[in-house]
């Protein structure tokens, strides 16, 4: 089984969420691509750059800001993935397939331990805050060079 096995569920969750979110993030990328001035492509065409080279050396570097935002969005949404896990397996078998969001929900609703659930939420908040600050810092340094 793709779903319900002890180890395969997180991979399935990632694939389903990718499929679901693809449209939204491609809209972000398309908006970024619309911002790139056409002169750059014209100049590259003059210099005889192939289509792949144009994408590699013009589109990708010009989309750096979009990339940064998309990476942070994807990370935050991936950590918070609750719905998908809750519908697919709800942590079965034997709590093997929980992510941290669905485990928090399980602790709060089924086991009725609000205190522990709140401290899990605090852990989750610190995790997300820390990693997204690191993301933005790293990218800021690269832009500043």
């Amino acid at each position, binding site marked *: 089984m793709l779903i319900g096995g002890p180890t395969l569920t997180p991979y399935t969750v990632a694939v389903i969420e*990718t499929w679901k979110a693809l449209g939204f993030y491609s809209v972000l990328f398309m908006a970024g691509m619309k911002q790139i001035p056409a002169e750059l492509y014209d100049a590259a065409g003059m210099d005889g750059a192939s289509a792949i080279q144009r994408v590699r050396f013009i589109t990708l570097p010009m989309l750096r800001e979009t990339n940064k935002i998309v990476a942070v969005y*994807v990370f935050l949404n991936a950590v918070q993935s609750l719905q998908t896990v809750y519908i697919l397996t709800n942590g079965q078998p034997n709590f093997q397939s929980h992510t*941290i969001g*669905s485990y928090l929900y399980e602790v709060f609703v089924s086991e*009725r331990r609000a205190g522990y659930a709140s401290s899990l939420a605090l852990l989750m908040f610190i995790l997300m805050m820390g990693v997204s600050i690191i993301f933005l810092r790293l990218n800021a340094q690269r832009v500043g060079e």
Partner: protein
Amino acid sequence: MFIYSTWRIKVLLLLPSIIFFCVYVLYPVGSSLITAFQFKPTYQPGHFVGLANFATMLTDQRLWIALKNTFIVVVLELALIPTLSFLLGLFLNVDFRGNNIVKVLCFTPYVISGIITTLVWFFISTLIPVH
């Protein structure tokens, strides 16, 4: 034009959103911060236990499994989503016949409720025979 941009009117115009922010964001965040240091069954009064909840966390085997699963999900999504959506964006930026239809089809799963999309995939996965 700028007759309305006095300090007092700015505050007055910001007031509703500030009130909503305090009631629906600031208060729950603060109260869950306090609850994090309490032993508290849901909907019942609790008492402070200091850092005991965080000590429980260290020995909670289920939490470590959950963190491992979250790590898998995060890494896979960070690898898949930016690359695939970049390629899809490149593809959709080219003008071809039926461009808008493809755009709509790609955006539809994001608009539909997550529960429904997950259930659809659940049913698809049960169709695959496994030996």
